[in-house]
């Protein structure tokens, strides 16, 4: 078996007294699409941000292409970052820059590409997510939420990343736009030949974009398996979550 694209081994992270990740083990194979599901505040974002190096885990190891990236910095970190692309929950577009510069940002700032060439690539990438050329010269604030998501997706794939992260890609979108974004995610990931790691609590989206699902609960991965087996997991936590029942083993902390 080839080296997994991403591997988390016993990753732990606490913020003050609050233990968020309590030994997460997860393997993402090359060119697969894994979705992490779990309730709000279960550490899904922290997991992704740990892989990205935005948050440093307290314990455990994170491997990307077999290389230990848990504690690297500087040039080594930059090199790993170039493998990544990310679509943020709120799109996180830079509102001081026009759409095309948002998409071309990683090419211009991260890789030192000439602005004119980067702009052409940005317009191509925008076309891939179904946006016309004239959108490129608008400001992000002039776009609807769905269009901002598309721009965020174009930005994530602009530098042809090997791994794309999706943070709640359908949150805040209407069901139709959510489905369109799901389709775009599936097609662009396939197109770029990338590995995808997503987090969501939208089961429709999870079923559509993944070939493997992992459920995070209590700081651990409590179940993982192929997407088609999610309905026969035999795990009461997974059952409760995918059917969205208030009754079950998962106790939501109503008080923060």
């Amino acid at each position, binding site marked *: 078996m080839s080296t997994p694209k991403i591997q988390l081994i016993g990753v732990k992270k606490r913020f003050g007294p609050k233990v968020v990740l309590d030994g997460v083990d997860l393997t993402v194979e090359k060119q697969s699409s894994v979705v992490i599901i779990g309730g709000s505040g279960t550490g899904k974002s922290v997991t992704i941000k740990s892989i990205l190096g935005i948050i440093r885990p307290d314990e455990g190891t994170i491997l990307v292409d077999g290389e230990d990236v848990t504690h690297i910095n500087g040039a080594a970190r930059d090199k790993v970052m170039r493998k990544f692309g990310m679509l943020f929950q709120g799109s*996180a577009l830079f509102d001081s820059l026009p759409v095309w510069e948002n998409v071309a940002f990683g090419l211009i700032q991260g890789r030192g590409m000439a602005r004119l060439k980067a702009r052409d690539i940005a317009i191509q990438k925008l076309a891939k997510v179904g946006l016309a050329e004239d959108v490129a010269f608008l400001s992000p604030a002039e776009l609807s939420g769905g269009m901002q998501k598309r721009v965020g997706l174009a930005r994530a794939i602009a530098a042809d990343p090997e791994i794309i992260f999706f943070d709640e890609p359908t949150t805040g979108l209407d069901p139709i736009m959510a489905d369109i974004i799901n389709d775009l995610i599936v097609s662009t990931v396939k197109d770029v030949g990338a590995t995808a790691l997503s987090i969501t609590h939208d089961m429709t989206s999870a079923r559509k974009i993944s070939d493997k699902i992992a459920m995070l609960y209590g700081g651990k991965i409590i179940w993982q398996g192929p997407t088609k087996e999610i309905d026969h997991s035999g795990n009461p936590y997974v059952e409760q979550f995918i059917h969205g029942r208030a009754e079950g083993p998962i106790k939501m902390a109503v008080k923060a």
Partner: protein
Amino acid sequence: MNFFANIGRATLTVLAHIGRLAVFTGQALAGLVSPPIYTRLILGQMMRIGYYSLPVVGLTAFFTGGVLALQIYLGGNRFGAEAIVPQVVVLGITRELGPVIAGLMIAGRVAAAIAAEIGTMKVTEQIDALTTLATNPIKYLVVPRIVAAVISMPILTAIGDSIGVMGGYVVSVYSLDFNGTGYLKNTMDFAHREDITSGLIKAAVFGFIVALLGCYNGFNSKGGAQGVGNATTNAVVASSILILAADYVLTALLFHK
């Protein structure tokens, strides 16, 4: 017991802030000397921090110079020393009021704007997005603002000094019956170069303080709109206090005899 716990907690919070600010300053200084340097961003920030602050700095300097002339005239009048107005105005403005007034105006205008902008970028994950696009947020956001503020503030202050002296001149000549030529001659003869340069050095330091604290508070803002609001307030309050404290220390150092 609760009372002591509160003192302890407050002390720890202050120490943690000082520690974090020191680390942040270190990162910013490291970013200053290592490539890439974003010249385009520095020029853009100089426009925002320097050029757009000209009206407010000019206006406050003018009135400060004017009121200084009036007060010295009225005070000096008590012991027949009205004639000293031009000398005291030029010293007061160049050594002290020019840089301090400009610094406080910039603290209100620029530290607040920087903290609000970076704070919003923080809470909307734009700073994380920079990281994922292989761009160092310190170098991209903090360094250009600090460089621009350190360059702009002495220029702003030099302009403010001139306008402040002019404010004193206008009040003295048109309201207090001074002779215009004599006023200017006294001003020119009395002011030394170090009076002006000391003020400009202070201005550069104040620029550094304003940009650093604006960025630091922006980077450390948490939550949503309220967090950004707190960051903005903290940036203005902290930079104003630090400007006045630094002013004292710099005066003591620069005029150490």
